[in-house]
């Protein structure tokens, strides 16, 4: 039976750039939606041609701001994807939406197009924080969008950004409690990251934007876990919290290092082609990508067959983000390397002794909460 497939579709446009964001997003006065829809469909068709039929497990419309697409475009893409990759069971179809009033008005259309899970970029529940983050919506608008979304979609989640400058633990707990009180079964809670090249990075370099210190960030993280746990949400990944069974299946495919195809500008994929695990990357700039598709039928910029060592490293750096850890059988099947051989035994023993890593019942390994919080320091030692 062929591998199930997770499909990522990138929509590269936003109404404005948020000062913290380094995603592949672009602001255009006018977007030629017909052209980009046609190009996405062509990119998808090309990918389907070489992958052959596989059961579609999930689709994720990410961005940029995919809620700027028209529901018709979304419908056409879902239709094409399910035709090319007939699902065995109903696929999870997520769309990232920005909670402005314009976009909220389109939610019903997205639902009708087949989207069954919505992920709202609320970011903060406080208007001054939203202004600081450069968002184009108020807290009230965001909550209104949330109400609409919940009424329409069987599954909904939203994103918050915390560990903002000056944010105290008490203030964050209060904000988070309000967020949890909506009773959703999934939230993505990210600590603010200064990404190089962004306006925030320039402020940060000049000392005009000061993040909470390392210890304060750790305390904020623990507070987040406590509050989420109280609402029945477990941290199944570093920044993702869900009730049992409500995890994002699409995102789990990344962390479990399963097959995913990425279409659209700058999209990445990890796909098994002819028994070889291949990393794919598409042209990043939107117009250049569209031209590439129009000229040669696909937007691929680069493909690389991954070595066993590279596969093992990738599977580790993704898998150790998950609370469930790494399954040894799946690891061997995907990478061709036994889990034990991919790790430095002395570093593993030390990390276990320090309570950073633990064995799983399946004979694999998982990071503990303490280990997950320090994963970037742990990985270079652990990985061979």
């Amino acid at each position, binding site marked *: 039976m062929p591998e199930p497939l997770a499909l*990522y579709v990138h929509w590269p446009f936003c109404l404005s750039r948020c000062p913290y964001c380094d995603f*592949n997003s672009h602001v255009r006065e006018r977007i030629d939606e017909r052209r980009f829809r046609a190009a996405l469909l062509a990119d998808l068709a090309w990918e389907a041609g070489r992958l052959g039929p596989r059961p579609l497990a999930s689709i994720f419309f*990410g961005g940029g701001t995919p809620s700027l697409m028209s529901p018709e475009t979304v419908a056409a893409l879902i239709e094409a994807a399910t035709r090319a990759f007939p699902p065995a069971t109903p696929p999870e179809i997520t769309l990232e939406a920005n909670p402005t009033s314009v976009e909220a008005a389109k939610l019903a259309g997205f639902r009708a197009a087949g989207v069954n899970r919505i992920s709202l970029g609320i970011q903060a529940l406080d208007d001054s924080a939203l202004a600081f983050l450069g968002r184009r919506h108020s807290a009230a608008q965001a909550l209104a969008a949330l109400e609409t979304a919940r009424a329409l979609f069987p599954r909904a989640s939203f994103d918050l950004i915390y560990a903002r400058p000056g944010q105290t633990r008490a203030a964050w707990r209060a904000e988070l409690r309000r967020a949890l009180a909506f009773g959703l079964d999934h939230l993505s809670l*990210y*600590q*603010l*990251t200064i990404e190089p090249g962004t306006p925030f990075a320039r402020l940060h370099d000049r000392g005009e934007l000061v993040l909470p210190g*390392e*210890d304060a*960030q*750790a305390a904020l*993280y623990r507070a987040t876990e406590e509050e989420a746990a109280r609402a029945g949400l477990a941290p199944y990944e*570093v*920044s993702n919290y869900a009730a049992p069974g409500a995890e994002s299946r699409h*995102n789990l495919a*990344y962390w479990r290092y399963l097959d*995913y195809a*990425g279409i659209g500008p*700058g*999209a*990445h*994929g*990890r796909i098994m082609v002819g028994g070889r695990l291949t*990393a794919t*990357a598409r042209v990043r700039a939107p117009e250049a990508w569209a031209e590439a598709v129009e000229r040669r039928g696909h937007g691929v910029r680069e493909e690389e067959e991954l070595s066993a060592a*590279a596969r093992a*490293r*990738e599977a580790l*750096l*993704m898998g150790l*983000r998950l609370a469930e850890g790494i399954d040894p059988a799946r690891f061997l099947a995907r990478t061709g390397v036994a889990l034990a051989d991919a790790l430095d035994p002395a570093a593993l023993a*030390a*990390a276990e002794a*320090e309570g*950073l890593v633990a064995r799983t019942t399946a004979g694999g390994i998982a990071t503990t909460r303490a280990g*997950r*919080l*320090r*994963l*970037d*320091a*742990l*990985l*270079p*030692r652990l*990985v061979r």
Partner: protein
Amino acid sequence: MTDTPLHLIRNFSIIAHIDHGKSTLADRLIQACGALSEREMKDQVLDSMEIERERGITIKAQTVRLIYPAKDGNTYELNLMDTPGHVDFAYEVSRSLAACEGSLLVVDASQGVEAQTLANVYQAIEAGHEIVPVLNKIDLPAAEPDRVKTQIEDVIGLPADDAVMISAKTGLNIEGVLEAIVTRLPPPQGDAAAPTKALLVDSWYDAYLGVVILVRVKDGRLRKGQRIRFMSTGAVHTVEATGIFTPKMVPVEDLGPGEIGYITAGIKTVADCKVGDTITDDRNPAAEPLPGFKPSVPVVWCGLYPTDADDFEKLRESLAKLRLNDASFHYEPETSAALGFGFRCGFLGLLHLEIVQERLMREFDLDLIATAPSVVYRIHRTDGTVMELHNPADMPDGSVIDHIEEPWIKATIFVPDDYLGAILTLCNERRGQQVDLTYVGNRAMAVYRLPLNEVVFDFYDRLKSVSRGYASFDYAMDGYAEADLVKITILVNGDPVDALSFIAHRSQAEKRGRAICEKLKELIPRQLFKIAIQAAIGGRVIARETISALSKDVTAKCYGGDITRKRKLLEKQKEGKKRMRQFGKVEIPQTAFLAALKMDA
């Protein structure tokens, strides 16, 4: 050009205190004689090493041949040697002096006589030089040529009435310098018919030419095809080329008596070349070698280890090549429990140490770890034997030590009145003993005896900071004396790191121990585990710091698009781990070793 009669040759060194303008004067002389085109010219053109240009100081002496049509109607061949001013490179100066008959003593007319002015002029007098004082920077509003002339006469005892007044920067009176060179400095002597005798002044390694040798011919000639012999090693080679520096390397037919130039002889064995050796003709050898040079005696030692153990052989080759170009640098193999195989290296001072490390890293692309610098102690054992201790890690057990002696220096410090108090306090803090204190105008000259150990760490930096840069300093070794010294061991999570151990006077031990622990706390990044840093004397802990464990270090967002980037980052971090030394579970970045040594006591 090659047949210049002796009376038309002048060989001279330019000597001065640091920054008094030697290299800038060399620029003007080169320009005045048209040796370089305007396009080829740049400031301090002879400071050709990258480090020299970055730091604005001369490290290596450089030679240039100039052709000067003098007012007396003759055309002279001038061989100019620009020398460094810093005390750590004094060996460059002494070798240059041996190749010349005269010196231009450059004195900054706004600063006056400084410590290295004195030190260098005494060396020149000892070398039998004729000396022409040159007052530089008279363009500066603060210049006081008359006061400085008096100072030269009072402090050095050199007549300064006809000192040449110039501005090397603006080019004022460069003609006066050139005329003084031909009229006041003596020509060389030598016998073209006698067996060849040439002094090996300097050498360096060139990837294409092999070893290049700078020579001063005393008697006879050197020419292509000649079989030459190095009198001390006995090695025989055939001259492949002879040439001069203009300052570009330009081949000439031969080098005759009184001339300075280079030879190449296809030499690949670096060990065949020793500065100070005499080169003679293999078939018609000279009876006696030239006196050569006094060997340089390193005053500071430290261990140098490759960060990547695989680079040990490369380090060995690189040291040999560097030594060829830096005769004041010494090295011998050693091993360290913490750092593996490396070399114990001797230097003339801390700046010298720093420069050598930097040259090794840049010119030979090596990553190095340096251990704490140490002076040479004399350990008198209870059985009456004496050992010279270059490495604190080799300190024998206290029970077999009768007593320890440490080296002392005699330091000469020039400082404006206003800062004298601060300087005296500094010297007293460092266990100094005042020998002399005199005044020349509003400047004081303090002579102190100080333990060298108190000077190698950060004395020079402190001297400069307490005097706002106005004090100058020179020193000479001044015997050994018994002292109450202890070895301080640094422990990281309970394991001694031999590379960080050092020796200090008992009265300073605690302060030093605390300082290094604090510094290491700053320099070692937080890690997955708590780290205890301790300083101990024997079993007794005298200072302690704790680096708490890393509390959070994880990327918040990581999805499908980030995998490649994250993997590459991970691979880079793993590569970066090679630049860390592992002590038990603890990783110490290489920068911590060097920086910990530069701490303020």
